[in-house]
């Protein structure tokens, strides 16, 4: 190997912030190579993907529409991941929030009560919370791995939604399509801007952002979660109630994801359909990491992720590229981020041994060759 990794004395704060930018840049470069290989003009494709969607006000409102659910999910996941609670279940929690909220919304088809909408939203958040309570209970009382339980619950939630829209919640006047009746105005989120789809869900997301920021950086509970994530044993010695923290992180995360789900069906969608989420809950995992588990980082990363969703749709329509590009870009971004994160704890040096081969004089450098890429295999 030409290069070697050398452990830094302290983790680099700079690299922690630079790494997401570097990862984004590498994703763009790889993306343009990919477009070129597909026979498209890379610059034009990148423009269509990342600039054209936000070149007018409507584009920005659409960005808000997509960023809101991602941000809500990612904020909750950040609280979990800070405490090393590996909640992969935002997608399922979102779907259950949509399902429960949607089912309640269908009870208000004849009503114009002002209480209907708040009730529906609360129901959605509570359903997401209840769905997250399952892995919390299993983890704290049965020692069950939350990665696997939350993943399984995602599949279960999706099948419950499919069952409901094919069965009990199907619109009787809907020509047998698997979808519910359209929600009435009483249970539809008000729009923030006329002639757009931007609804007040974005305000919920921004409010959650401030709340999570306060929780994580200004409260003792936030501090406890952080310690739990950094060093479980230290948290034990300090007498922190680990179980309670796990519950708190999962319930909060579930409630936010559930709220995201119910906002989708009462907002831009307006009814229960099988495709409530194009994978927002999974995208939020990437966003949480990309945003460094920090609310402000998550705000920016959610907007980028929303842009990837909108851009993916636009290149499908305008350049006839597969919609799956969205998922591909998401995966690449996370991979590059993890790879770049190595620079937080390590710096890249030219391998002294490689140097030594060319310049014998620098052979003296061969000491402390720690974490050498090529010596791994010895």
């Amino acid at each position, binding site marked *: 190997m030409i290069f070697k990794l050398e452990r830094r004395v302290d983790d680099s704060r700079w690299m922690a912030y630079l790494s997401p930018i570097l990862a984004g840049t590498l994703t763009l470069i790889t993306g343009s190579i990919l477009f070129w290989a597909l026979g498209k003009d890379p610059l034009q494709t990148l423009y269509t993907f990342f600039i054209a969607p936000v070149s007018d006000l409507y584009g920005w409102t659409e960005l808000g529409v997509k960023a809101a659910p991602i941000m809500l999910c990612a904020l909750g996941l950040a609280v979990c991941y800070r405490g090393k609670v590996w909640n992969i279940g935002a997608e399922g929690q979102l779907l259950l929030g949509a399902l429960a909220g949607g089912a309640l919304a269908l009870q208000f088809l004849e009503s114009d009560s002002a209480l209907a909408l708040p009730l529906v939203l609360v129901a959605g958040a509570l359903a997401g919370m209840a769905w997250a309570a399952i892995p919390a209970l299993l983890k704290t009382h049965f020692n069950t791995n939350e990665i696997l339980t939350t993943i*399984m619950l995602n599949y279960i939630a999706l099948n419950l939604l499919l069952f409901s829209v094919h069965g009990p919640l199907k619109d009787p006047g809907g020509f047998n399509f698997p979808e519910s009746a359209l929600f009435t105005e009483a249970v539809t989120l008000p729009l923030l801007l006329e002639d757009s789809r931007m609804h007040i869900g974005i305000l919920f997301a921004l409010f959650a952002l401030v709340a999570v920021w306060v929780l994580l950086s200004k409260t003792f509970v936030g501090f406890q979660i952080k310690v739990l994530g950094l060093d479980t044993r230290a948290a034990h010695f300090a007498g922190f109630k680990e179980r309670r923290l796990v519950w708190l992180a999962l319930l909060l995360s579930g409630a936010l994801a559930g709220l995201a789900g119910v906002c989708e069906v009462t907002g831009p969608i307006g009814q229960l359909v099988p495709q409530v989420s194009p994978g927002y809950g999974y995208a939020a995992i990437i966003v949480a990491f990309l945003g460094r588990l920090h609310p402000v980082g998550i705000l920016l990363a959610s907007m980028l992720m929303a842009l990837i969703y909108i851009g993916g749709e636009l290149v499908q329509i305008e350049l006839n590229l597969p919609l799956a590009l969205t998922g591909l870009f998401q995966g690449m971004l996370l991979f590059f981020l*993890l790879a770049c994160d190595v620079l937080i704890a390590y710096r890249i040096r030219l391998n002294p041994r490689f140097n030594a081969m060319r310049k014998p004089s620098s052979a003296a450098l061969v000491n402390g060759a720690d974490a050498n890429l090529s010596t791994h295999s010895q």
Partner: protein
Amino acid sequence: MDYDLIVNILYATVRTGTPLILVALGEMVCEKSGVLNLGQEGMMLMGAVIGFIAALETGNLWLGVTFAMAAGLMMSLLFGFIALNLSANQVATGLALTIFGTGLSAFVGSDYVGTPLVGIEPWHIPLLSDIPFVGRILFSHDPLVYLSFGLFVGVYLFLNRSHAGLALKAVGESPQSAKATGLPVFKIRYLAVMFGGAMAGLAGAYLSLAYTPLWAENMTAGRGWIALALVVFASWKAERVLLGAYLFGAFSIMHLVAQGLGFSVSPNLLAIMPYLATIVVLVLLSSDKARVKLYAPVSLGKPFHPAD
């Protein structure tokens, strides 16, 4: 229930359990070396799509299987580079592999959705398949099922009877001591990760070339994740992987049983069964903390630097 129905249910159980056996055996070997790769689902999907495309374009099903294994292997190298060379968090890297594999497979396969293909045909083993009851259940399958039997025996012997298997387990228990006794820890872990990748690719090929010969987005439907749970269920023992996989296979084909008994239940509710069973099994097995600790490789999921 009549005789034919029971035979058919057991026959289908073996078929449904086969991809789980393949991917779970691979993951178990990987975990035995101390590496937790949560990317099984992504590697399986890549195996499924690449295997399908290769078989369709070349007209050779076995070339498809080979390409699928190569695809799983390549994906595992990506994991290996980031998780082992760059010592990134294994949980996050595995998740990344699944997200990436899901996206990439959908992208690569977007032109092939719904394309028909004549899949791998059953291969009735002479004499053995004529045995009543057992013959139909075990010996009238496609060759990949027989391959899964062989791979099971191979992994079992490797882990329990071979020197190399002992070295692998030593690395998973304590890489520090393994290194001190002169074992190439890094190389062994890489090989284990690659084996897991090739097996996941093979499992994917089974799905897209034999089980249901077609390509559909996300056609693995969480089998990669179920396999991860299976390894816990099996307490990292090969023989229990086999048992567990067939048990889960049976859960996945509950609709056959339900139809046989004259029930009409929503297919979406029945689809929940294997995932629900996974959770129940995890709860039953994990609640005994001591037991999990006893069997799990001690250094599972912990990065290791020879020089640290």
